[in-house]
């Protein structure tokens, strides 16, 4: 006899020729639970993990931000200082300058990424030989880890042995060792903008490409019937219909760049001096070099609320684009 027909539950009436599926122990245990309860059972481990590694540290950080905790002097009693840490940060000119540096970095790199990304999207949107190959090549930097990007650009930008200085020297005649992209005050901010643009312009390209592909062909056909020039088609059709997608890319990249830490830390570590010290690097220094835990927790909360607020606007824009 077939296995399926031999294993039958003895306490159930059996229909000749029809077998019942065997219930496992686990299945029998959940028997009687509602669908909702079973759903909760599956989701519970994830929620527990989320609470343990996200929500609990956040609540702990909020608590610490109201204290004077300094981990290098942890033997001192923990004292509640109210809003003093927030007051210190919001009247500290150094933090203010670091936020301005961050804003300059965000504005420059996002603007460059949008221009380069949109240009690449316009190129890739045309059908040509090797189209898929070039798309893959362009997308490669985006797939790399920021740690890898930071390390290999550090090598590329080495004044003595790096190929970047060699190329500049080849075209301009300036000696290779006469300038350092990461070590000079005037060049270091542009270096991080350059590397970030190299890495993330393909992402902007992808979003713009989605926008360009969503424009129906008949609009261009109608424009051609009306004898509109390609330039006019670009300004009256392509650009206006891609703007929501561009907005999405700008918001996303702005939020990501505001939090930027890893790549800049590897490339310049905030130097020379504090020229490229973004607010995230200041936060790391306050927390793990000066060990001002209470103060750095308050700064982290200020950054968190800022990013959370910007993310709300991002989600709202995303929903508008989806409805389009």
């Amino acid at each position, binding site marked *: 006899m077939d296995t399926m027909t031999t294993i039958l539950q003895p306490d159930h009436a059996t229909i000749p020729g029809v077998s019942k599926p065997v219930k496992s122990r686990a299945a029998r245990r959940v028997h009687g639970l509602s669908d909702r309860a079973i759903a909760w059972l599956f989701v519970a481990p994830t929620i527990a993990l989320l609470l343990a590694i996200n929500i609990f540290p956040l609540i702990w950080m909020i608590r610490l931000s109201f204290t004077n905790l300094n981990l290098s002097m942890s033997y001192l009693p923990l004292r509640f200082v109210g809003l003093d840490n927030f007051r210190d940060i*919001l009247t500290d000119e150094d933090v203010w300058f670091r936020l301005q540096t*961050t804003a300059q970095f965000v504005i420059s790199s996002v603007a460059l990424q949008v221009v380069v990304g949109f240009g690449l999207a316009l190129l890739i949107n045309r059908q040509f030989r090797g189209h898929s190959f070039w798309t893959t090549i362009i997308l490669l930097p985006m797939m790399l880890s920021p740690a890898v990007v930071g390390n290999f650009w550090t090598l590329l930008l080495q004044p003595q042995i790096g190929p970047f200085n060699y190329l500049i020297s080849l075209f301009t005649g300036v000696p290779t060792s006469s300038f350092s992209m990461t070590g000079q005050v005037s060049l270091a901010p542009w270096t991080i903008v350059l590397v970030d643009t190299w890495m993330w312009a393909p992402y902007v390209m992808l979003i713009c490409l989605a926008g360009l592909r969503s424009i129906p062909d008949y609009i261009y056909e109608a424009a051609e019937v009306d004898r509109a020039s390609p330039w006019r088609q670009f300004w009256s059709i392509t650009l206006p219909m891609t703007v929501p997608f561009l907005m999405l890319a700008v918001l996303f990249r702005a939020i990501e760049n505001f939090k930027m830490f890893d790549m800049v830390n590897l490339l310049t570590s905030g130097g020379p001096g504090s020229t490229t010290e973004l607010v995230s690097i200041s936060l790391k220094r306050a927390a793990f070099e000066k060990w001002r835990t209470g103060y750095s927790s308050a700064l982290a909360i200020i950054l968190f609320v*800022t990013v959370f*607020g*910007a993310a*709300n606007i991002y989600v*709202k824009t995303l929903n508008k684009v989806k409805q389009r």
Partner: protein
Amino acid sequence: MSGSAVARNGVTRSGAARWFRRGPWEAIAMTLIGGGIIMLVQPWSIDLYSYSFVTILAGTVGFVIVSHFPE
């Protein structure tokens, strides 16, 4: 008509529903967030910088609340 208004589809709306619509309140909250971020990073006035966090916080908390208002 003091406490109610007739909406476009003919349904009468109460005063509260007329006032607590999501759209305009969300726009106000988003303006507060955006304004707060500009205050945080602008290079001109440290006073504006000092009040930036409160502005962003008000906008963010406001946004969370008003996003539960009816459309």
